[in-house]
């Protein structure tokens, strides 16, 4: 064996990248070091890319550079422009891009490789093509839903599961054909398999509603990770295998956490089409049947100003109203008066894991004021006012005590145990799941109707005047 300096350098660079990726993720375990972690991972990526570019001997250089230029421009521009409230759909798109790349790599490999090409490549090529396409198509639908370019409600029809099952079966049959012949099959078999995988990606996300998006985004993230790892088998690259598995593990872990936070098995989230049981969405949200007490900005302002402790409970409604900055201003006013302000974050508040934390961080809320559900729940009995801003289902006491409720068993924020609860809400329309919230009828609860941002700003002014 001849001494090959170049392949040695390439291996060393890949090893350096792997170490930097793992260290980077490790540093993400604390907000103080997270930025360093992200940069370490980025440096690792740069090293790997320089090494691989060098190793290509400029073969197809113009095509590679063209691709990089286009991708860098799009990626950089959209990353700079995106609003923090729109982060879930941005992450979904980037995720879809990765999945799409994995699918395309396998496609090119299929058409250029000399068939038959051995079992490892043949299995990994088929799998990475399927999972990559599934992830790409699913991510695009998730993006469309989150961006509200299509309805965020679950899209269901009779026999949906059967149709999805048939498509899945088709993918399996075509995939097995391709694997069995090690890619000697005509191109149409491969193309049909790609088409079916894309279709399944679309079908699979359609019935999943907006409130379940944290689960779906985590799962799609994990899919792309796995697709990349399998692409690594195809290209015999440890770098791809390791990076892909790290991401796959991360996405899976988050998916499990989200499922736990909703107390629903994953199968139920993915195949259950939550709160869509036959036109239920229109029937329950007609309003009027609930006996609630509306309150005024002045009353709430007095209540807040003389409180010892206020806990803010943000939900997706705060994101929609872009109210995070106003919330922070209100908290500032209250803190000036000596009121302790804390934020209670439910794991599935928002549209992706940790969504609320990012929004509040954007509004300069220090992260040590943000509390997880388990840490804040014992605090509620000691809390004078729980201010619920655009959150609904995660505060619904029915989850605790109404066994027939669809969300029964889901861990919730115990806002009802606070001395007073003020719910900022646009109207009496029920939450995403279309479930009545008995919280609103409790004697210690009052409602402040209106746009969250406008209400919070009015509260801030009123607190100042107290």
């Amino acid at each position, binding site marked *: 064996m001849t001494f090959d300096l170049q392949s040695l350098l390439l291996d060393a660079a890949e090893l350096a990248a792997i170490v930097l990726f793992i260290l980077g993720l490790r540093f993400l375990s604390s*907000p103080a070091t*997270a930025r360093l972690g992200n940069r370490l991972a980025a440096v690792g990526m740069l090293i790997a890319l320089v090494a691989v570019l060098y190793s290509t001997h400029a073969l197809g250089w113009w*095509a590679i550079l063209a691709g990089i230029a286009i991708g860098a421009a799009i990626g950089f521009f959209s990353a700079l422009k995106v609003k923090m409230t729109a982060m879930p759909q941005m992450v979904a798109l980037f995720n879809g891009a990765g999945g799409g790349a994995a699918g395309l790599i396998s496609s090119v490999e299929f058409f250029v490789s000399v068939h038959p090409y051995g079992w490892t490549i043949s299995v990994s090529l088929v799998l990475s093509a399927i999972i990559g396409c599934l992830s790409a198509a699913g991510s695009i639908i998730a993006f469309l839903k989150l961006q509200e370019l299509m309805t965020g409600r679950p899209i269901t029809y009779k026999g949906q599961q059967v149709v999805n099952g048939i498509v899945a079966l088709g993918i399996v049959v075509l995939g097995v054909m391709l694997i069995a012949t090690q890619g000697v099959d005509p191109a149409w078999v491969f193309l049909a398999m790609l088409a079916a995988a894309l279709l399944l990606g679309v079908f699979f996300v359609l019935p999943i509603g907006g409130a379940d998006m944290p689960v779906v985004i985590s799962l799609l993230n994990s899919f792309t990770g796995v697709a*990349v790892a399998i692409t690594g088998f195809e290209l015999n690259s440890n770098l791809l295998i390791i990076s892909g598995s790290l991401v796959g593990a991360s996405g899976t872990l988050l998916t499990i956490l989200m499922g736990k936070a909703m107390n629903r098995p994953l199968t139920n989230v993915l195949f259950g089409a939550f709160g869509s049981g036959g036109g239920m969405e229109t029937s329950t949200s007609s309003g009027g049947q609930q006996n609630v007490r509306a309150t005024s900005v002045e009353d709430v302002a007095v209540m807040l100003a003389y409180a010892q402790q206020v806990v803010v409970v943000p939900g997706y409604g705060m994101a929609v109203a872009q109210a995070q900055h106003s919330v922070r201003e209100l908290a500032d006013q209250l803190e000036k008066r000596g009121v302790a302000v804390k934020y209670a974050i439910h794991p599935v508040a928002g549209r992706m894991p940790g969504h609320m934390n990012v929004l509040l961080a954007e509004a300069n809320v220090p*992260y040590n004021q943000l509390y997880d559900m388990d840490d804040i729940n014992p605090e509620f009995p000691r809390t004078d006012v729980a201010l619920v801003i655009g959150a609904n289902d995660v505060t619904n006491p029915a989850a605790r005590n109404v066994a027939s409720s669809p969300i029964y068993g889901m861990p919730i924020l115990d806002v009802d145990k606070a001395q007073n609860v003020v719910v900022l809400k646009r109207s009496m329309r029920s939450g995403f799941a279309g479930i009545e919230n008995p919280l609103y009828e409790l004697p210690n609860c009052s409602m402040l109707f209106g746009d969250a941002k406008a209400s919070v700003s009015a509260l801030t002014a009123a607190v100042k005047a107290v």
Partner: protein
Amino acid sequence: MNHGPDLFQLLTVFILAIFVGFEVISKVPTTLHTPLMSATNAIHGVVLVGAIVIVAQLFGGGTPSTALTVLGICAVALGTINVVGGFAVTERMLQMFKKREPAKK
């Protein structure tokens, strides 16, 4: 890359990396779950390395067809979007995370 790669060696790496992944990720606090997701997102952009290899391989066998060239360029572009966008957006988010600022009230 012509002779099949050693499957079990690759599988070993794959399984071990999954364990490392679970271990490392489980230490990330919920506060940072969104940046975690976008950072891991950027990391799976490493598929770009694969895309570059495949385009070079494509051109290594003479001038490829236009269709395949376009597919290859798309793969590289998508991978780059994933990498650049992922890291940039994570950086943007993380620079917002602050402890209670010095001007303590």
